[in-house]
């Protein structure tokens, strides 16, 4: 931990040597979910996606308030050594509710899932809809049945006390609701993130970042609370927030103004006195009607090693070295193919679609989605961007092309433009080259194998 001049923050920088960047060739492994879209209801649409810390489980949340768990399969004959998953269990995590006080319906849609570190017996998972965060424990419960009760059957008086006996049955996967963290948010919760101290997690909505102790559901500390003087004047909202992966004192949040704020609890209890902004100065020359909308960061995350932050807005992806807050390492106009269509996208309100971003296990790549069933794997330096599609229509030919900034000047594009078919969530396995990609109601798994640079082109 040392003080970094430019930012003035004490930053924990991982000094672990990074392996050489290997380009990866991606293979479709498996897909789950109803293929016939006419049979799919709105409730079946996937709304969140998460790997657990070991990568043995994937959980998928949908708009119906369900969380479906997939477990890493032992490797079927067909797939060989591929990293594949199979259905494991399902929980009805949230139900739709009505807030009588505010006369609004609270949807059951699962906005976010976060697995807790596995130091305990069983799996622990936080799930949230717009307002209520729940802690679930999923475990193998042994069935136990008691018999030989004192008052069983006999109408006669009791002569002596008996202690019932226990008969044990088989084990079954059970989900137990352990805690409910509520009343901490006035707006819709957009993020959940566990702290590296294993004891706390944060939740964020448009105006607030709350820190909870996992064990305490009736107290909350608001680390960030943007004061609202007039609800119609709100000019900046929090779009995502996350704890640093290894340093429990640091967390960041991204805003609709295209800023990432990195905050340090040690410096001050007021976040504005302890945070540093990572943002590019506004380019007034290029400013147009859409600037404000497309500059809003839809999601930001830390690289797994904590040295970088990745952010996604409507058009670009950026990599920030946490030691340098003035200029990003990478500022790639990944979806520049959308720029010509902004008017149409505004008309159809697609311009407000939020695409998430996630980091690879080795912090070398970022993964983010796009339209027409496609998604992009971009290396941290912005040197290459692989475009793939995740759909049942053409699983084998899902590879669309690679864009190398230093070799081919032509930016990536999509084969067709179908704005109804979008990949908003895609995540990377915590320690292997495998991806889980959500498209509408379907989950797709891809495996990556390292290839030499030249082989790809």
């Amino acid at each position: 931990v040392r003080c970094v001049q430019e930012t003035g923050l004490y930053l924990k920088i991982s000094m672990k040597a990074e392996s050489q960047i290997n380009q990866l060739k991606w293979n479709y492994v498996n897909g789950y979910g109803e293929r016939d879209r006419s049979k799919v209801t709105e409730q079946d649409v996937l709304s969140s996606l998460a790997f657990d810390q070991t990568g043995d489980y994937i959980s998928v949340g949908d708009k119906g308030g369900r969380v479906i768990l997939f477990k890493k399969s032992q490797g079927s004959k067909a797939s060989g050594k591929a990293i594949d998953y199979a259905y494991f269990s399902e929980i009805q995590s949230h139900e739709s509710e009505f807030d009588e006080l505010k006369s609004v319906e609270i949807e059951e849609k699962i906005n976010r899932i976060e697995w807790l570190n596995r130091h305990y017996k069983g799996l622990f998972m936080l799930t949230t809809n717009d307002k209520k965060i729940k802690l679930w424990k999923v475990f193998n419960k042994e069935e136990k049945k008691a018999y030989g009760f004192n008052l069983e059957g006999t109408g006669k008086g009791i002569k002596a006390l008996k202690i019932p006996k226990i008969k044990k049955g088989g084990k079954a996967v059970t989900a137990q609701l352990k805690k409910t963290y509520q009343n901490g948010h006035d707006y819709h919760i957009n993020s959940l993130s566990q702290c590296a101290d294993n004891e706390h997690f944060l939740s964020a909505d448009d105006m607030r970042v709350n820190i909870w102790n996992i064990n305490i559901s009736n107290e909350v500390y608001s680390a960030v609370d943007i004061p609202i003087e007039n609800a119609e004047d709100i000019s900046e909202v929090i779009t995502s927030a996350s704890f640093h992966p290894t340093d429990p004192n640091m967390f960041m949040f991204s805003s609709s103004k295209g800023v990432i704020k990195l905050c340090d609890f040690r410096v001050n209890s007021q976040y504005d006195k302890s945070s540093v902004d990572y943002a590019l100065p506004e380019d007034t020359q290029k400013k147009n009607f859409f600037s404000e909308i497309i500059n809003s960061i839809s999601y930001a995350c830390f690289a797994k090693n904590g040295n970088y932050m990745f952010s996604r807005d409507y058009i670009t992806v950026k990599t920030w070295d946490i030691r340098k807050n003035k200029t990003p390492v990478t500022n790639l106009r990944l979806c520049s193919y959308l720029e010509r269509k902004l008017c149409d996208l505004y008309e159809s309100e697609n311009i407000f679609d939020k695409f998430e971003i996630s980091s690879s296990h080795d912090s070398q790549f970022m993964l983010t989605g796009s339209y027409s069933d496609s998604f992009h794997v971009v290396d941290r330096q912005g040197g290459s961007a692989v475009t793939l599609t995740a759909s049942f229509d053409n699983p084998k030919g899902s590879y669309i092309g690679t864009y190398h900034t230093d070799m081919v000047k032509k930016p990536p594009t999509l084969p067709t433009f179908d704005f109804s078919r979008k990949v908003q969530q895609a995540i990377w396995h915590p320690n292997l080259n495998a991806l889980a990609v959500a498209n509408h109601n379907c989950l797709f798994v891809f495996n990556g194998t390292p290839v030499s640079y030249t082989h790809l082109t």
Partner: protein
Amino acid sequence: MCIRDRSTWDINQQERMSAEDKSSIYSIAVLIDELRNEDMKKRLNAVRNLPTIVQALGPDRTRTELIPFLCEFVEDEDEVLASLAEVIGGLTEHLGGGQSLLALTKPLELLASTEEGIIRDKAIESMKKILSLCKAKEGETEIMGIIKRLINNAETFASKLAAIAIIPSYFAQMSTANQQEMVSFYRAGSGDENPQIRKAIAANLKHMIAHVPKYPEAEALALFNSLCKDEQDTIRLYCVEQLLALSQVIPYQKSNTFLLSTIKACAEDKSWRIRYVLADKIAEVGKCLDHDAILHYLSNYFANFLQDAESEVRTIAASRTADFCKLVDGTTIVKRLLPALKKLSTDPFVHVRKALAENLLPIAPLIGNANTSEHVIPMFLTLLKDESAEVRLPLLKNLEDLNRVIGVESLSQSLVPTITQLASEKKWRVRMAIIELFPILAKIMGEAAFSERFSPMCLSWLDDNVFAIRESAMKNLQQLTIVLGSKWAEKNILPKLLNYQMHTNYLFRMTPLFAIPMLAPYLSQEAIEKTVVPFILNQIADKVPNIRFNIAKALKSISAYVKNPALYSAITKALAQLASDQDADVKYNASKTNAAQSTQILHLSLIHIS
């Protein structure tokens, strides 16, 4: 006849006995069954009644049957388990000693390994309680077996957390070999990669330090040093309390430089939470140091805390100021601390100013008259004008401290407007608090000065539109009467109360009926008989029933202070009239009063006779 009767009685008695017996067996049987009921509330109730079940079963059956049954519980709801963990600790008294006692540790061992902190903590507490009852050498093998199983449980690290907490409570009873093993377990834990383990070690190290020299001093210092340098500040947070524990067991001079260097590290820590903890415990830390060290080092750190960039640190430091100042001499306070405090009186954070306001006046007796006038009074006056009532209020609460050094009389010119302002503050809490202050003010200022400035105000609250305020105003007047005496009350309060008789709103006509019984014990005989009672009797024809029944109530309590028999008969007559009132409530209260009064009259007549 007689014999038959007797035998019937015997039979009845027998039947009743066995029925009682049966019903108690039955109720316990129900409780036992309910331990496994589907309804969580019933299970919870049964668990809470475990002592009854254990008493009925006796130690042997409890050990061989009930405990193994309870061990099958550990997948129940958290609430049931937390209750179970707590209740088991209370079963000790029903179980004698030895093996039965140790049997209780079985379910506790399972409960201590759960991931839920509340259950674990309760299980740990119960476990400690049981271990403390185990005599030395008794069952050491079993107990060490439990501890070692907790340490080595690979399935969950929660059991390790439990072991860390339990070890210090049994450390003294362990064999040397086991002690060594635990020492190395603690050492390994202090370097564990899981921060929760390190934190548990940090939180419990002070209990281990208490075992020095059985717990090696070098070991204590090594762990302390390593935890003080931990990268996580939640772990460094414990370093101040460990230091306090260390200074209890390690001879003073030897550790002096060591103490100072550690305190310096905490005082200059980059994380404000560490500085906060030191500022919080500054007085206790001061007690471990000699006078020189306090003057040269600690008071400088403390002055820095008062000017810390983090408002939380300034707040806690300000709120420890009165305690800390007792450790240093007047000159240090004036030279080192007062300049810092002066800045705080205009701090942007209200909590800081509030903490300062609470601590400012207690300093006055420590620095004497001249310094108080020069330094404390200007700050006092600044804070007195503070925009927040929460800041102004504590100043007044500590006025007695200031009064001891320099008379408050000289300040009354600046005090009066503030008090007047606070008394009309929007926040009711502030108004209530200021009302409570008046008896103290009255004591300090004396009757003449007080009634000149504040009597009208105290009386004006009786006109408040809110009953709660009128009620506390009455209580205040009662307190003031105690302090200032009956003459003051008769001169100031009574005329005001009598005026309410003419009020058009019956709610205000009620005020004297409530107030008079409260004041009666402190008024003179003359005032009661000549003014108060005739006044109440005068109102008896009020057209509002509510007034009439409150008259009845008031007469009841006041009659205890009336000695004149003529007046007594007047009261009785009035009550009789009310007892035949049209309104049912008036009737009820009047007749109730009558009963109370007749005994009173009886009592009175007896006195006259004697």
